[in-house]
């Protein structure tokens, strides 16, 4: 079956974070000063990693290092959602990578100098491929907040990082998703670098209720819309 031709328009700035953020110095020293150059999209840009065969299998359960291992410390959560394009068509076979701090606000990363404890039962990262309906589901621990030490004041609210490889080079996507009702959401430089309330809400999980039984967890949902519309077939 031939792959559908997808049309990719440049991102509408109204749907995105600002490029320059006050009190976030690296946004001023790293954002290019020259205008971005419009270009035609050729086969090279319209193709992209058929991602699922590039990666080793990952884990969809960050809350334990093995199926029979103890759970990490913290609030067990289920993270689910669906990936579609701008037409609302599901994107199956997309690779989702997530990473996050543990319940104490500590990442497994050499760059993390925060003096919070590492949790040996927490993996901190997961990877999966979306199903035929574009759906995904992870288990994890609710991340803690943590200070950005260089800033002298800025604390990041709890959030989970998402990296998504969709259908092409053009819909490659990376973001951070926040939790509803967190007091630090009001002061976060990134979450508040958005032009309007709708955009801000698309950066926040929806609370989906609780599950009880084999797994007792709080549920959070976030759907993603990747760039791309199916091209209207030319009329004969």
């Amino acid at each position: 079956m031939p792959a559908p031709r997808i049309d990719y328009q440049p991102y509408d700035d109204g749907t995105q974070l600002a490029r320059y953020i006050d009190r976030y110095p690296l946004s001023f020293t790293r954002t290019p000063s020259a205008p971005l150059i419009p270009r035609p999209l050729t086969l090279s840009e319209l193709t992209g990693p058929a991602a699922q065969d590039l990666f080793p299998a990952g884990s969809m359960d960050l809350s334990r290092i093995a199926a029979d291992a103890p759970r990490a410390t913290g609030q067990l959560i289920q993270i689910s959602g669906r990936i579609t394009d701008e037409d609302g068509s599901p994107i199956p076979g997309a690779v989702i990578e997530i990473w996050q701090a543990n319940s104490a606000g500590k990442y497994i990363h050499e760059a993390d100098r925060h003096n919070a404890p590492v949790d040996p039962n927490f993996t901190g990262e997961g990877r999966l491929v979306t199903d035929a309906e574009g759906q995904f589901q992870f288990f994890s621990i609710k991340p803690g907040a943590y200070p950005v030490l260089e800033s002298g004041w800025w604390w990041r609210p709890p959030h989970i990082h998402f990296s998504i490889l969709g259908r092409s080079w053009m819909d490659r996507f990376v973001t951070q998703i926040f939790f509803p009702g967190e007091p630090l959401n009001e002061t976060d430089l990134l979450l508040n670098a958005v032009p309007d309330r709708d955009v801000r809400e698309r950066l926040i999980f929806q609370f989906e209720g609780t599950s009880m039984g084999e797994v007792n967890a709080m549920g959070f949902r976030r759907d993603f819309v990747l760039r791309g519309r199916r091209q209207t077939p030319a009329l004969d």
Partner: protein
Amino acid sequence: MAVSPYCTIGPYFPASFVEGGQDLTRFRRASARGQHIALSGRILQEGGAPTRNSILEIWQADANGIFRHPLDPRCGDADPGFAGWGRARTDAEGWYRIRTVVPGSYSDRCPHANLMILAIGLTRRLVTTVFFADEPDTTRDPVLDRVDAAVRSRLFAKREKPDAYRFDIILRGEGETPFFLD
């Protein structure tokens, strides 16, 4: 439906997501056809300071100019030993290091690779294209043609050895790399 908002990759992208991503010349235990090369360079910010801990991703055709993707009509002939996609992290001096092959030309595109940069301070990815040709002034390519002639040479990798190319990426400031609207 409105597209989801991008946000910065931040400083804590897991090491395991980068491991093994720098070498495109081996895939599923096979070795890529064509000339294997090192592609390396520094990613610098305004003032020439290195960016440490930035993520660079690459997507390119194989040595015969074929993309391993269903949109490419020649996909069935794609090199089974070539990954096409890769990922690297910059070190303390801003260096990234990729092993790949010289991409083949196809149709009206001359040999090139797509690059994207994710880093602290960038709320969205930055995209550019690196070209592999000796003559920036006479190379014709529909994407390159959109770049001001005065700065086109900044998109060409420098051949430093027969099997080693260098391509520095200057995010902002003097010698700024041309980036494309995304």
